[in-house]
């Protein structure tokens, strides 16, 4: 709310270069995927944010991992993107007008593999001049989003995938 009263402060911030990284860690193998072209829009006045990432844009070290990720698990031809739409629920504790790093809680809807879930996540909001950096680390359970892990590879793929997101947002040109 404070942002609304600061002259020259653009309330909507945006990036098309958000980094979304995930990893599946098991004693058998480590699988990592990275997409550097996520989009994120934040309205600093209301704390509303929208994230979107294209599944086909995740890159892996091994071609086979990328193939399995797209074809067997995420079915990216059918479900080409993953989204999160939510709101900072402790907006009163975040001062967008003052440089610093704030702990934030974000509540909203996550859609992966065509399945939408209500979730609440912790993260940080770093205010630096006109820019805002968002960071969050969280777990995603494959089963929650209808992603089936075949029995033969159940020791190779983690039941809970670790996800890291990072977005450096800049004021939107209006």
């Amino acid at each position, binding site marked *: 709310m404070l942002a609304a009263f600061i002259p020259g402060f653009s309330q909507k911030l945006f990036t*098309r*270069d958000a980094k979304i990284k995930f990893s599946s860690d098991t004693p058998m193998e480590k699988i990592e995927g990275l997409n*550097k*072209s*996520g*989009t994120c829009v934040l309205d600093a006045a209301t704390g509303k944010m929208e994230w*979107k*990432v*294209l*599944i*086909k*844009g995740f*890159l892996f070290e*091994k*071609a*086979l991992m*990328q193939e399995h990720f*797209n074809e067997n698990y995420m079915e*990216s*031809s059918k479900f*080409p*993107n993953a989204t999160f739409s939510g709101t900072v629920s402790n907006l009163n504790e975040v001062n967008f007008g003052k440089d610093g790093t704030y702990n934030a809680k974000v509540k909203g809807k996550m859609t992966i593999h065509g399945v939408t879930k209500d979730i609440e996540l912790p993260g940080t909001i770093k205010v630096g001049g006109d820019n805002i950096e968002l960071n969050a680390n969280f777990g995603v359970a494959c089963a929650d989003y209808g992603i089936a892990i075949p029995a033969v590879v159940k020791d190779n793929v983690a039941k809970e995938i670790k996800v890291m997101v990072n977005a450096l947002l800049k004021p939107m040109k209006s």
Partner: protein
Amino acid sequence: MKKTLLFLLVAGLIGAAYGYYLWNKPHEDMGAAKAAVTLTAAQLLSEYTADETMANSKYLGQTIAVSGQVKESTNENGQVKIMLDAGDENFGVYCALDSAFQHPRKDFSVGENITLKGKCDGINLDVQMSRCVEQK
């Protein structure tokens, strides 16, 4: 008996070799990849804006060649991204160069006309392409 054992051994070896080959299968060489279709950035964005499902059925996951004028080019720790102008004020075709490819150049000037070949990842405000290489 001996024959069966030998057969099983050979089959097992072939299986293991095939598994090993698959596991280490390299990523597709984008320099040698053939583009399924060549079109302009404006055409691609307008098809996606008109009907995402239809456009995805044609282009998603395909290697395509897209031509257009460079609107912006950035280099973040070696990851070069190029925005191709698609005639829209806000959105375009956003292309990330392939990190596995030896690019003859990584500097692109705003305004020059280029053609990029890469994988179409779908639309996320812009149409996004990954693993792009410049096509002469």
